[in-house]
Each structure stands twice: as C-alpha cells, then as structure tokens.
C-alpha cells in the first residue's frame, strides 16, 4: 500500500460531478487542483449501507475542507453511471459537493495497493496529499467499518499547522529560513 512520504500516482479518471443533464461527468487528472491539498477517500461499492453515511458526512464538512485549501475526491471501482444512479437514488447524496471518481479499470486503486484481496474492490482507504503531491496521511478500515471524517479534518488541520513563530524556538534549534 502506498504510504506517507511517497508521491501520489498520476491518474486520469472519469468522475461524476453533478446530476445536471449534460454536465454529469468530467475527466479529473492528477494535474487538477494545482496548489491545493487533496483528500482522497475510497469505498468498496456504491449502493451499500455504510458508504452513504460516510460520504454524506464528508459532504457536510466540504466547506471546512475547502476553507483549508483542500479538495475532497471520493472514489470506488464503480463506473460513473453507477455513481450517478446512486446520487439520483439516495437522498443524502443528491447534492454532494465533491466529485466521485470512477476507477473502473482499477488503475488508481491498484497502484495505491488498496484493493481488497478477497473482494477485488477498494477498501475504505483515505489519503491526504499535500500541494506537492506527497502523501502525508493514509488510513484504511476493513470493509464493514465506516470512517470519521471529522478525524480526517483534524489531521489535515494538524498537518497544516506549523509553529512558525520565533517565540517558540528553543535554544539550539535551527533558525527558520524564509523563502
């Protein structure tokens, strides 16, 4: 499984971004959202029980992620049409404010190493990737256990909070060099 400190892989995937006719789908690549943090979270299958609560919970926190210059990108190995049908079908997903990636060829999830060996679908993996494309946090749950998006937000916050003020420097520590 791809870990912290490694470069998030390049990808180009169709994503479901809207329920509006004509603009449902968009190709999203690793070059998009330049300069932003990215929060990728994968789930095993659309139309199952645990997933919508998690996804909707991320949706409710989307503004807080956006305020922190982070783009949420959900994904599973389902096709973009399944994502669209699910969004149309499930009340909690109707107004989802972030894209759902369709990794139907299992290219991204395969490279990340997060495919469940038994089920062949994505495990509940979450990646936080910094603006330089480096993985800074990864967590995976077993298929049956949902995640806590508040915790992901807390980690993102902690990753972005550096004690930069000279007031904190202890004797003997290296000085800060500004860009």
């Amino acid at each position, binding site marked *: 499984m791809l870990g912290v400190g490694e470069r998030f892989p390049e990808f180009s995937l169709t994503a479901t971004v809207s329920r509006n006719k004509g603009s449902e789908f968009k190709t999203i690549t690793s070059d998009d959202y330049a300069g932003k943090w990215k929060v990728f979270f994968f789930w095993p299958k659309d139309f199952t029980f645990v997933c919508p609560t998690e996804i909707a919970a991320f949706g409710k926190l989307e503004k807080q992620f956006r305020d922190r210059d982070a783009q949420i990108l959900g994904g599973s190995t389902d096709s973009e049409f399944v994502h669209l049908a699910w969004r149309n079908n499930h009340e909690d997903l109707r107004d989802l404010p972030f894209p759902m990636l369709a990794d139907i060829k299992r290219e991204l999830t395969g490279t990340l190493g997060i495919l469940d060996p038994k089920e062949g679908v994505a495990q509940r993996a979450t990646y936080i990737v910094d603006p330089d494309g480096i993985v800074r946090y990864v967590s995976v749950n077993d298929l049956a256990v949902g995640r806590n998006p508040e915790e992901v937000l807390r980690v993102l916050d902690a990753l972005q*909070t550096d004690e930069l*003020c000279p007031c904190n420097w202890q004797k003997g520590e290296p000085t800060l060099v500004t860009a």
Partner: protein
Amino acid sequence: MNLEALLDAVPGYAKDLKLNFSSVMAQTELTKQQAWGTAVASAVASRNSEMIQAVFGEAVNHLNPPVFDAAKGAAALMGMNNIYYRFHHLSKNEKYANLPARLRMNIIRTHGIDPVDFELWCLAASAINACGKCVDAHERVLREKGVSEETINAAVRIAAVIHGLATVFDTERVAAAQPLNA
C-alpha cells in the same frame, strides 16, 4: 476623521505626543513602507477606533494592498501569539513551552512581502502587547537579518507614540460622552 484633523484635535495636555507623531513618521532609519506598516500594526494593537480609522486612511496612500494586508495580518497574529507566548513567559512552569501550540500561523510563511518588514511589524505589536518572549524573539530575528538596533528602535518609537495617542483619543471620547459636573 482624517489623520490631520484628528491630530489637530489632540488636547493641549498631549501636545508632546502630537508633535512626536510627525517626527517619528519622518525617521530616516525606516523606509516609508516600514514606517506606515508599523503605524498600521501599532494602531491595530492599540485598539482605538479613531486612531485605526485615521491611520488606515493615510496609510492606504503609502502601502499597496498586499502590504497593507500584511501589516494588519502581523498585528492580528500578534494579537493571538502575544497572549499565548506571554503566558509561557509568565508561568514559572517550563513545561508549557514544550507543549505543541496547535495554533495556525501560516501567514508568517505566506504574507508574500518583505520578511524584514513583516518581522518589524510583529515586533512593534509585541512591544505594545507587552510580550517579553515575543519582543526578544522578534528582535533576535531582525538582528540576524541584518537590521540595526537603530532601525528597530525607530519602529518602537512609532509604536509608543501611536499607543500614547490612542489612549488620548479613548480618554477624550469618554470625557465628551460624560462631561464632568462643573
């Protein structure tokens, strides 16, 4: 009220401060940007409405928007850090200095303007907010960046005068609202 009119309204008992203002703003140890940024940060730290309004109204002629924002940002940041780190300094328990602050202060990295100027404005606000640890830390950084004591002192003069004037305007506002019985 514009700055000139506000200064004209300074009562006689504070004439020294009024005259000091024009001389400290003309100090040659500071660039115009440094002087007006210091004035902005000091006005914010001094918390008086008239002073903030009047200084901002004049400073906008000397500081372009990102620089103006950075001066306000420095004072805002010090509004937070001067309390947090002053607590560490005041408490005899040294453990606090080793606890993670978990306070965002990314503007230190992202202000985008001359780092010397930003540091100078942090120092001015810290002087007004009376955080000893902060004053020491910022003074040290400025000296490491090659800034002279004369320049640092010049900025502190501005902070001192602006703070003094701020107290005058607070006083006069209260006095005007509640005149003393003859």
